[in-house]
């Protein structure tokens, strides 16, 4: 492949990702006839919804050159509160508010640590993850919340004009995200902060406010994802959300976000999530024990990062 076409592929992230998805489908179909059935593809898409929402937030955080590995903890804690409100028999609107509210508050905590405490995001969210995991154990008291009532079922099973309602959430949230990034000063500020924080500050961008926004927004999205999680599984375990941070980071990086900040590609993130879930589903159907999932996802992250760095270098070499 010539350097030109490599650059073109690197520039058209969505194209290469879509090709990768098709390639994965082709390979896995050869391993398992069940892979390419409507039922399985529906399962894959259904399993992607929570990750899609969380990855949207992670894309914004990465755009500011931040990272959040505490999202799994936020998902767990929000889910616990939702579970409790269901058990207590709260009216539906109140229950619907609980998840996003708890998530938003916890997101604000991360934002506060990063902006006011000036703690590097990796340290702040690693510390918070430790705290959240302890909190999840203590809140659950060692047992699971299970057998929750079916109150929230319509939240995941319903359809609007024939379109599954979960798809509507995804489209709406991503559209708003795109609007913010593309048309609002806030989005420009987010990208500017990640591109060059000092320059952004000197140019008068509200650096702190932009960072605070991305963590809060992620918290909100994780809280909403927790709502869907509880609606679907109707239980909360201590291990809820343990590896979702990795999946979300991989999906966003696959989608073209740079961990160095300054870039966000929302369509890419969607395709990244689909690819991650396709691979995870395909490997299981191909007979790889699910214990290998972390190994595969972790290696995928490294592979993408290495390829990205190589593409960037060759692009810079070309233009120099």
């Amino acid at each position: 492949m010539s350097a030109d076409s490599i650059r073109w592929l690197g520039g058209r992230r969505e194209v290469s990702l879509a090709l990768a998805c098709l390639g994965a489908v082709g390979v896995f179909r050869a391993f398992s006839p069940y892979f390419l059935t409507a039922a399985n593809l529906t399962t894959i898409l259904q399993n992607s919804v929570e990750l899609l929402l969380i990855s949207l937030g992670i894309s914004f955080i990465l755009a500011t050159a931040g990272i959040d590995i505490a999202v799994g903890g936020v998902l767990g804690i929000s889910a616990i509160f939702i579970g409790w409100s269901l058990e207590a028999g709260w009216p539906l609107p109140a229950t619907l508010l609980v998840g996003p509210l708890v998530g938003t508050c916890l997101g604000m905590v991360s934002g506060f640590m990063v902006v006011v405490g000036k703690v590097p995001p990796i340290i702040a969210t690693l510390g918070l993850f430790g705290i959240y995991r302890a909190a999840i154990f203590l809140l659950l008291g060692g047992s699971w919340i299970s057998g929750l009532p079916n109150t929230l079922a319509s939240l995941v099973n319903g359809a609007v004009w024939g379109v599954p309602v979960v798809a509507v959430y995804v489209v709406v949230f991503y559209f708003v995200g795109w609007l913010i990034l593309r048309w609002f000063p806030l989005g420009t500020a987010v990208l500017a902060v990640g591109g060059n924080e000092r320059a952004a500050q000197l140019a008068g961008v509200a650096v702190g406010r932009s960072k605070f926004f991305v963590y809060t927004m992620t918290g909100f999205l994780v809280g909403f994802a927790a709502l869907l999680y509880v609606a679907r599984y109707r239980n909360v375990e201590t291990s809820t959300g343990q590896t979702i941070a990795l999946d979300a980071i991989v999906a966003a990086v696959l989608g073209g976000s740079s961990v160095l900040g300054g870039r966000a590609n929302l369509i890419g993130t969607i395709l990244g999530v689909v690819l991650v879930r396709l691979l995870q589903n395909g490997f299981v159907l191909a007979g790889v024990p699910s214990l290998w999932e972390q190994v595969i996802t972790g290696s995928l992250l490294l592979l993408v990062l290495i390829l990205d760095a190589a593409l960037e270098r060759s692009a810079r070499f070309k233009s120099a």
Partner: protein
Amino acid sequence: MIAALKRMRLAGLVALWILVLAFFAVRSPAFLSLANFSSILQFSTVLALVTFGQTLVILGGGGGIDLSVGGIVSLSGLSIAFSIKEGLDPFLASLGGIAFGGLLGFINGLLVTKFRLLPLVATLGTFYAYNGLSVALTDGAPIAGLPPFFGTLGQGSVAGIPLHTVFIVLPTFLILEFVLWQVPAGRWIYAIGGNERACRLVGLPVDLIRLGIYVHSGLMAALAGLVADSWLLSARPNIGENLELLSLTAALLGGTSIFGGSGGLAGSLVAVFFFTSFQTGLQMLNVNAIWQLGFVGLFLIFSVVLDTFIRRGEST
């Protein structure tokens, strides 16, 4: 006041440690016994070794961080137990396991220096890869039944002091301190952590030093895996769980700056003893071990906020 705070940092940490000892001694008289003292040392070795590696990684700057240490502890511990079970001489198996840990660290180092990945994402990737591998390769089951004589290192003691404290932790600490303060390579670690660009301009082999730091972290983690194997006479695939959080917190609480270039091992070691005393104390009071994880998270954030505060004070 700021300067005093910085100077007092180690003393403050020691004071905090003594405070914790005193608190638990009051709550539970058995806490100050020789037996408990030796159990604190027993528990501190694995964390101490991993923290030594972590401290150097952070000191070397450039956003240095090693999130994969726990995975390396588990994987190299498993490799040692596996080779012994396959009939390899335990001594050779141990050497092989330590070399294997060095190799895993080398992979981290390559990702950071050759492929130019940010350390936090590079080691986040290997964190999942290494931890995942140790669970996947064993189906989550421990490799048990190592020969009893293999337990000498991990279980033996002289005058209540565990053998591994005397023969591994102490010598490692002294050698590393000597290297850090008296050997050029050690000084260079501080130098590249303090001002990487200047070091490159004067021709220091920055990448090579960093690579070495990550290999060292892998070696230390593998050594910790060996001690754990020998202590438990089995290798558990999750033995390294939470060690990344604990070692980072110990290093930062010990006064090493997250931005590299300042700090040292003495503080890290005190922080490790502080943690293990805290842990055994909580156990004696029958407090759920999960509380510890929460406290550690708090300490981590607290120590970085404190560090930022000190730095801000210095720069004005």
